[in-house]
């Protein structure tokens, strides 16, 4: 089932046309690995899909609902979460970071605490609750950011090179978390260079070359 689709998406910086995508559609229950050389526009594409940047033109559909970027609709922000390559953690606490989106959605305190506790257990962050977020290691930050996204149960998860700069163990943990994140109702796009995400089930490949998406229809092994 098609969950998120964009058509005629284009984005240029100055003279340079970075993205020119006729059609890109993401199905529920699949995970997509987005590859491409440095500067091919992977981050830009994910940021556009998440409504952080706007394309020059383009139309999108979420399920049956049409949307565009003028402005990116608030209802869609509730469904799509983008995680930076180096996630930014607010200078508060691990718990407050995870609770941030729940507060923004007006989830009442009791429910919020329950969900945050579940997210902490899910990402195995229990021992880090007293550490100031800025003092966490790269892998730990990544897990806090994933927990912060997971707790909102987004339909579309966009991860920008979640395993770059991580050692083998953190990498495996992150991959496991990404795997556990995705369900039959959701989709995920994971930008990466290497074969980190090879272990991911139901994985399809999106390859960006010269601003075009090469989308293969069958899951790669």
């Amino acid at each position: 089932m098609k969950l998120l689709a964009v058509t005629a998406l284009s984005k240029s910086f100055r003279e340079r046309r970075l993205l020119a995508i006729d059609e890109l559609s993401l199905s529920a229950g699949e995970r997509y690995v987005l590859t491409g050389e440095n500067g091919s526009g992977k981050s830009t594409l994910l940021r556009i899909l998440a409504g952080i940047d706007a394309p020059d033109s383009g139309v999108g559909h979420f399920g049956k609902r049409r949307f565009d970027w003028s402005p990116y609709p608030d209802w869609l922000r509730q469904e799509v979460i983008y995680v930076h390559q180096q996630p930014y953690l607010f200078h508060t606490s691990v718990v407050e970071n995870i609770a941030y989106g729940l507060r923004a959605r007006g989830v009442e305190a009791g429910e919020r605490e329950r969900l945050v506790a579940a997210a902490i257990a899910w990402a195995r962050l229990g021992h880090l609750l007293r550490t100031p977020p800025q003092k966490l290691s790269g892998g730990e930050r990544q897990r806090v950011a994933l927990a912060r996204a997971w707790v909102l149960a987004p339909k579309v998860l966009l991860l920008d090179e979640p395993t770059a700069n991580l050692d083998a163990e953190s990498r495996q943990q992150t991959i496991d978390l990404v795997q556990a994140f995705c369900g039959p109702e959701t989709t995920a796009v994971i930008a990466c260079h290497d074969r980190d995400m090879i272990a991911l089930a139901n994985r399809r490949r999106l390859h960006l070359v010269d601003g075009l998406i090469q989308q293969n229809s069958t899951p790669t092994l």
Partner: protein
Amino acid sequence: MGFLDATYAALRLLFSADPELWTIVGVSLSVTLRAMLIAMPVGVGCGYLLATLRFPGRRALIVVIQGLLASPTVVVGLMLYLLLSRQGVFGQLNLLFTQTAMVIGQVLIALPVLIAFSLAAIQGADPRARETAVALGASATRVGWTMLVEVRFALLAAVCNAFGRIVSEIGCSLMVGGNIAGVTRNIPTAIALETSKGDFAQGIALGIVLLVVALGVNSAFAFFQGESRR
């Protein structure tokens, strides 16, 4: 009276609960604190809007505000005097030579400092902070609040800087306050008066109080600036 005698007398004054001296200190702190209470939300709010919104004339406005950072306080005092004097636009309000006039003057002096510093603080924030807040579904108000919390140390530094500037400013307070004993006589205007009268003890005692306040505020400023860079 020699300098040493005067200093000795000043210390005696400081520790003797001299009512006149502490009234002056009270006027200074009360006027400056009230001015800060008004100027802080306005200054930080304007700084945030300037950092966030794009509108025609924005660059020019920023240049003007940065220019006002260097405006001599006597000039602010002069303008305010002209507005508040009997013939002035706000003459009927009878505000000249009141604490309210001093508060207004100090607000005007503090505002450019607060606006320019909070603008710089928010522009200097990591762009991912705003993006993360937006991506997690925060409303515009919540994004704004989050940004202010993220740069809180830089904002505290701005507040200390503005406080230090207006607590020690003399030009405007003298002109629109009038240095009336027990009412509008604050530390800087009293020091100037006592010194001109040759009463160095009172002047030195007040100078010590002002130094302690200014030093405290400046150490806080340095501390918050350090914290905000971490």
